């Protein structure tokens, strides 16, 4: 699926073209659903989220500006932002309980890649992955947690057992190093 094709489909969806919407769904839903599952770790929640995401895409396609970011980047951002909202809401729903932090921790532990996943990732290494590898392991993990789990500074501080301010300084420095690496 080329970028130009996705650009065209999004332009047609913004004009309420149902055929284009169907084609867009066919071509992108597996990727967005995979991301929802990755963020939410819960099939039913991910299915609900995917519905909401495509309703948003239908309603807001005109907000996509071709040439600014790749169309897939825009679609992934819509999906990620919605899934993160859902994840944060369901976390805040359990945060009153004593095991609130454990839930976040369990989810961290559950995400270690298996051998197949590690191999696949090595085949198709994104630049950001290579740059994350240049960071101290747990700092890279903090960036991944912020992006893929929507972890807040407070949650990250609890996870890494450091004060909130330290956590923010850490992460900001990591982001600066990442940017330096990415722009090399």
């Amino acid at each position, binding site marked *: 699926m080329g970028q130009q094709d996705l650009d065209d489909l999004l332009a047609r969806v913004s004009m309420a073209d149902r055929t284009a919407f169907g084609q867009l769904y066919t071509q992108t839903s597996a990727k967005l659903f*995979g991301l929802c599952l990755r963020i939410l770790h819960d099939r039913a929640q991910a299915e609900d989220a995917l519905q909401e995401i495509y309703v948003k895409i239908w309603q807001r396609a005109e907000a996509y500006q071709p040439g600014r970011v790749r169309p897939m980047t825009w679609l992934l951002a819509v999906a990620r932002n919605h899934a993160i909202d859902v994840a944060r809401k369901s976390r805040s729903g359990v945060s009153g309980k004593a095991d609130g932090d454990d839930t976040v921790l369990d989810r961290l532990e559950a995400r270690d890649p298996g051998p197949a996943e590690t191999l696949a990732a090595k085949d198709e290494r994104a630049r950001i992955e290579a740059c994350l590898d240049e960071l101290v392991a747990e700092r890279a993990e903090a960036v991944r947690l912020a992006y893929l789990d929507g972890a807040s500074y407070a949650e990250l501080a609890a996870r890494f057992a450091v004060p909130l*301010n330290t956590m923010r300084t850490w992460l900001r420095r990591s982001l600066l190093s990442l940017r330096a690496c990415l722009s090399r």
Partner: protein
Amino acid sequence: MSDETEYPDDDAVLAAEYVLGLLPADEAQGFAHRLIRDPALRDLCDTWSEHFAELAEQAEEVRPPPAIWRAIQARVFERRKPLWRRLWLGQALVGGALAAGIALAVLRLGWLEPQALPLSAALTTEGAGEVARIALDPDSGEVMAELVGLFPDPGRARELWLIQGDNAPVSLGLLAPGVVVALAVPQDLRAALAGAVLAISDEPTGGSPTGQPTGAVLATGAITAS
């Protein structure tokens, strides 16, 4: 640690925090206001979005169950569907040129593309009556199709075929029970749609594995001007 209060005041870092959703609400709001006026800041956010999207793209692709697409369609198209259904009925009952003209005029006021498609076909069988309603646009190749009878058993599907003259059937895609699906006629087949025949066959889930009908042909109908 001595660095606890040393926040790098770099817009690039602020942009990353904004994209990640890490900024406290008041800072996020302030940043959003700056974004409106500052294209350089927007570029920074765009660049971070591209990089982070690469992380998202590492997630394994998983095909969602078909019910999700039906639910999305029902929500996105829900306000228009009943009208379409009423009009199909109206066409069947009246069918006169005047009535059709009025219907088209009414429809073009809205966003109601499917009703305004110039060609249509009703696929019927002797036993089950109407099986599917199809509307087509020969210019765009757009097809709106709804299966209204002879719903498939579990593990089976209903596939729609276009048959032009003596040529082999060409698959237009799968129909869904009670839901309007959008399909498309390949570009090179659009010229001779009027008078061609549509057929529905019984196929395994996912459609014919061979590219030609493999199961029983359940219903047929000619394409005519709406």
